[in-house]
Every structure is written in C-alpha cells, then in structure tokens.
C-alpha cells in the first residue's frame, strides 16, 4: 500500500457516506430525472470540478484531500511521526440554485449543505488516528455564476500509514 493510500480510501469513504445521506441528497434538490442512488460523478465529485455549462442550475459537493508539507521534516524525531492531511469540501452552487424551498429550514442551499457536512464530519475519529477538526469555512466565487463554500478539515495520522 502506498504512503498516500489514505487519499483514495478516505475519498471512497466520504463519497460513499455522502451519497447515502438522505438529508444531504434532499438538500441537493435533485431534479425528477436524477437518480438519488447515482449521484457520484453527477452531483458528488472526488476532485475539483467546475460545471462546463451554466445552464444547469445545480449544486455540487466536491471533496479533495491533501497531505501538506511535513511540518518538521528535520525537527525532532518525535515530531516526525505525525502528518496532518486536510480534507477539503466545496459546496458549489449555481447562484440561481441558492434559494432553498425546504420546510423547516431557512437559508441558502449552499450554507445549509455546508452545515450538514460540518455536522457530519466535525469531531469524527475514524479518519487517521486523531480527531477531524474543522479549520475553516469560507465562501467564495468560481466565476460570475457559481459560488462556493469551502470547508477545510484537518486530520492527524501517522507517518507510514498515510503521509
């Protein structure tokens, strides 16, 4: 197993969890012709993705995993044990799709989806050896049509297992 195997296995795990989460599926606001069982590569992507067309008014969830530069490459042997992979979620929403007409909820679709993702992953202890921690939750724009909310989670793992 490669040193970065956690990238694939964690992506598999996250995509699997997202695609079976009925609350998230509901919040994505699927069209009638879309299959709730088949959202991978359609609404949920395990890489950065920018829709080619701006005609489809949709929201997407993107996930990417990075293993940042080791902080203490030449530091003490004790510090050399740990790596801190980051799991980055993007909730990418067409600005025409921001309005979410959902009973009992008030807010933009983008914010609501980001909130569900935070609830789902904040504090999780099954990614690496430590606790998954939300480091940032920021909004931005891809272009004049698509807006996003970026959630960065930091994990802790052991060298040789992940990093």
């Amino acid at each position: 197993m490669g040193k970065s195997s956690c990238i694939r296995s964690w992506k598999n795990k996250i995509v699997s969890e997202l695609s079976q989460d009925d609350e998230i599926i509901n919040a994505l606001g699927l069209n009638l012709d879309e299959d709730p069982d088949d959202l991978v590569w359609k609404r949920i992507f395990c890489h950065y993705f920018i829709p080619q067309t701006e005609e489809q008014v949709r929201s997407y969830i993107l996930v990417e995993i990075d293993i940042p530069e080791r902080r203490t490459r030449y530091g003490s042997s004790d510090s050399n044990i740990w790596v801190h992979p980051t799991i980055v979620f993007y909730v990418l929403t067409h600005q025409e799709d921001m309005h979410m007409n959902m009973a009992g909820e008030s807010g933009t679709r983008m914010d609501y989806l980001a909130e569900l993702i935070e609830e789902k992953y904040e504090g999780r202890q099954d990614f690496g050896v430590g606790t998954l921690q939300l480091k940032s939750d920021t909004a931005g724009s891809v272009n004049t049509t698509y807006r996003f909310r970026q959630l960065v989670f930091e994990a802790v793992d052991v060298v040789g297992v992940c990093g």
Partner: protein
Amino acid sequence: MQEWYVINSQPTMLNGLEKDEWDAWVTDSFDELITETPLRDDVKLCRGQFNGETGEFEVEVETQAIIQNRDFDAYTQGWKRQILTRMSDNLAEYKYVKATDTLGNTQIYLIMTMPETNKIYTKAVLHECNYTLKWQDADGNIYYYPTYTADATQYNTGVERNGNILETGYIQLMSWISLDDVTKELYRDKRMFIDVASESPETYVITSTSKVPYSYNEMRIMRITFTECEYNPKTDRIDLMLCDYIDPNDIPHPNPINITFSGSPSIRIGGRKTFTAETENEVVFSLVNSALLDGKLTITQTDNKCVVRCANDSALVGATFKVEVAGGGQRSELLVDVIGAV
C-alpha cells in the same frame, strides 16, 4: 470360466455365529455365482426419465444378475424373464433393467412386480419392452417411456362396422408402463402413435388406465389400454411420431417480472441501488452472491422496491451478484456489477 476354483475360504467357520455362517455360505455363494460363473449377466438397473434420443435413463447402475427363463417353451413366454440380484443391489429402487440379448443388443426390461427377497437373493419378474411410447404434456415437454405392449384384441377382426356404411379400425393394445409422477397423469383421450411403420403409423387413443391394481402400493407399474383411432393430419406429426403436436413456441409463457433501476445495473462500493419489480403481485426480493460478497450486501425491501447496499470495500470491485425477485408464480433475476466508489 476357470477350470477349477475353490469357493471363497470361509473365515467364519469356527466362530459359531449362525448369521455369519449364513452370510458366508449362502449369501456369499450367491454373490460368487453371479460374479464368477457363466450364469452371470451384466446388467444395468435403471430408473428416472428415459431419454429417447440417447437411449439412457437418468440413473443407470451397472451390476451382475442372473436372468432366468431365457429358454422359454412357448412364443407367449418369449418376453417374460425373471431376474435374480444380490439383495444389496436394492432392486426395488429401480424400474427397468438393461441386459444383453442373444444378438448382443441391449434390451430394456420393465420390472413388472415388486422385487422381493427370499433371504438369499432378490427376485422380480421382467417383461421385455417392445415399444417406447412418446407423447407431450400440456407444456410441450416430450416424454419417452419403454413399455411392454401386448395385443388385446388378437382374435377379433380389427374393424368395426357401423350399419354397413362406415368401417373403422378397432384394434386394442395394452401397454405396461412404469407408474410415476408423469404417467399417473395420463388419462383417456390421450393419443399416441404406436407402430413400427414410419410412413403411415397407426394412431391410438387411451381408453382406459389401471393405476392402482399393479402399483404394489409403491408406484410400481400401470396398465394402459389403447384403442385404434383416426390419424389427424392437422395435428399429428408423423415425422416426430407425436400425436396432437404442441409446438413449444406456441405456448404462451408468462412474462417475467421486469426489474427496473436507474442508470446501469451496477452498484458502487459503499453505495446503494434501488430496484423495482414491475408487477401487481406481491414479490419477494433476494440476493444470490459469491462467498466474496457474503456479509457485504444488505437488502431492504419495501413493497415492490428493494434497496441494496454494498460495503465500502475496494476488494469487492469487479464482483457480481444477482437480484432475484419472485411472486405470482413468476421469477426474474438481474445480474449486478460491483464497481468502484468513485
């Protein structure tokens, strides 16, 4: 045959146990008789459906036996034999015997009586099968049954006069046949060809059956009486030797249950897939999978829908399983591929 031989040594001579003495001197001697002497006949004990194309039964067990009454004294005895077999051959479990005749051809004999033992060997009466009946059931399945068929009207004229206007054939035959789950359903009005002629074979119709008297309470044999009937060129197929031919292609088969789903018939590891049975009947879904997928798939059924979930395990990618649905007497299945999560 050996010029001389010593009967098998009997190691139980001195133990004084009568059963062992019996087995050693009687049972063992009979075994030796049919194993090592010219009285031996190599036979096959048969049961199950007979395949008219290959001439073989579903089950054929080779063994040795003594076929008696080969040197009959009257032509009316020519098809009758008795068979003696080892008790351990369990002759009662079989319906037919295959043995070789004087010409070296394999003959099929119908076991006419319930085989019984006299504590030395098992014996049954055999009749040589002289004709193989062939017919179809309502579903178009073709059956072949070797029978001993006898003349039931050998002294009459063979025709019936109806006021000097019409003469019709009036021959009757009796067929003895194995009684089983197929033949017990034979009733009057079933028509069959019974003839060795191939250009204009005679057609017969069942006019009576006798299922209980010869059953020995063990589904042994039954008698069928056939009466000559008219050939029907519209429904009888001489080329196939089948009366009232049913083309299997003409039999309406119930439509299988249609299993619908979105996208392709595949499920991602760690994913789920919903399958819907398009029927108004109550259905039951089930999965058929290899050992690799044991414990890796879950199925949840709600009415005529089921959701299959697959564990998030990369080792499962490339595996396949079947979704089966049954209901209303129908059954369908769908092969599903397991693909990667992303």
